[in-house]
């Protein structure tokens, strides 16, 4: 019994011990119809101090964003850069690196100074490189974001940063 408790505690703690950096963000941009517009979005994202490189797919109007090492990656600033260029975010997903983190719907984990609440998905153990999709007003078209509102009432404790809501 003691052993089982110890394993459960370890499992729980491990969910708060993931300090690796997000390795990549992929986002779709809505409203783009010209390569000059895509360039405006790319330039706004490139201005962010933690961004190392941006690969824009002009045909599908989505972007892959890579980061400098040991930086505070601010997902909100990425979404805001798209808005500042005059467009809107269609989707935003980030690649995390996990080390055996147990998650289930409505559970929380901490990662690189921020908290994340899983709003959808089967209970699982996240390990290695994993992509999670962000939900909320800043990361989805308005109508789609509305659907997630009931799942976004509770924040998470653990890290001093903000709580993001993600799906698997």
């Amino acid at each position, binding site marked *: 019994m003691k052993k089982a408790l110890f394993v459960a505690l370890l499992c729980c703690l491990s969910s708060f011990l993931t300090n690796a950096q997000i390795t990549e963000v992929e986002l*779709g941009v*809505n*409203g*783009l*119809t*010209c*390569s*000059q*517009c*895509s*360039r*405006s*979005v790319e*330039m*706004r994202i*490139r*201005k962010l101090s933690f961004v190392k490189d941006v690969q824009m797919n*002009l*045909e599908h*109007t989505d972007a892959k964003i890579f980061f400098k090492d040991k930086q505070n990656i601010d997902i909100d600033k990425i979404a805001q850069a798209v*808005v*500042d*260029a*005059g*467009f*809107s975010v*269609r989707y935003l997903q980030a690649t995390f690196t996990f080390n055996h983190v147990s998650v289930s719907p409505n559970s929380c984990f901490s990662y690189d100074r921020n908290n994340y609440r899983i709003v959808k998905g089967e209970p699982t153990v996240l390990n290695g490189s994993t992509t999670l999709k962000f939900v909320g007003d800043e990361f989805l*078209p308005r109508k789609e974001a509305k659907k997630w509102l009931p799942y976004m009432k509770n924040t998470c404790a653990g890290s001093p940063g903000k709580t993001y809501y993600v799906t698997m």
Partner: protein
Amino acid sequence: MKRIATILFLFISSYLNAQELFPLNEPASNVPKGTLGVRAFGESYKEVSLYRNLFALRLMYGISSRLSVYATASISNHHSPILPPDLATHTHTGNQTVYFTTSIKRGVPYPYLYNGDDVYVKYRFLSSDGQNSHFRMAAYGEASNVNVAHDETEPTLLDDTKGYGAGIITTYLKKHLAISFNTGFIIPLAYDGYAADPYGGAEVPSKLVYGRAVSYNLSFGYLLFPRHYKNYNQTNWNIYMEFLGKSYEQAKIYQGPEMVSVPIQTPLLKGGSYIEAYPGLQCIIKSNLRIDLSVGSKLIGQSYVHFYPVYMLGIQRYFFGRE
């Protein structure tokens, strides 16, 4: 007319992406936040045996994602330094002076003059974006300190008349079709100065009150090349069809030491309305340097502020700051 119908059909049947970087009309979209745009543009048309030219420089800045501000300065050889002697003339009947307007002589050479400055502010208040599509609406306001001896009633804030104006822009863009409708009003302020005396005497105190106007512009555009975007280095070729229209009131002229109201006879000073058609071609180099050329002709009615065809050339670039 047949040519226009063919071009319209091309727009509707196109399987290519739409473009809203209209050479002449403003779309509801804005300059990206923190980005400086520079546009140099010119207009030229032949008036009798000489060319009237306008050169303008515009600085554009994205204050926020929704708010852009433009400042434009221009020079042209469109205007006489003072109102022309044939704008209004007079005869003497006994002790009475009778004023009347005449046809202003066209094709008279004028020097290049600095017209003044125009400030334009645009606020996008509605956005509905989809993948490769959007519906947007913006409101704009414009004010100008242009103070030249413009001798037609039709007001244009950019280079002919001081005053102010405002309006609404609606842009709809769906893969195959881009449409933008732009409508607003112009409240010009009067030119208060002098006219040359037709008999070679002292300059005559004159006040020209220009007609208020409503503008209505409709633009279509689409991308010819490339058919599929691969990278920023592909030169983009876009074609446009823009319709510019205006309705304006009759002018009022006051002249002489007692500022007598002068009856208006010439069509240049009477109220009117028109729609012009401007087919245009645009190329965008490295997804930033934009060069556009449009040629305007009259479609319904006509404008008296220029002759046809009107050639418009523009070159524009964005500066994103630290890249």
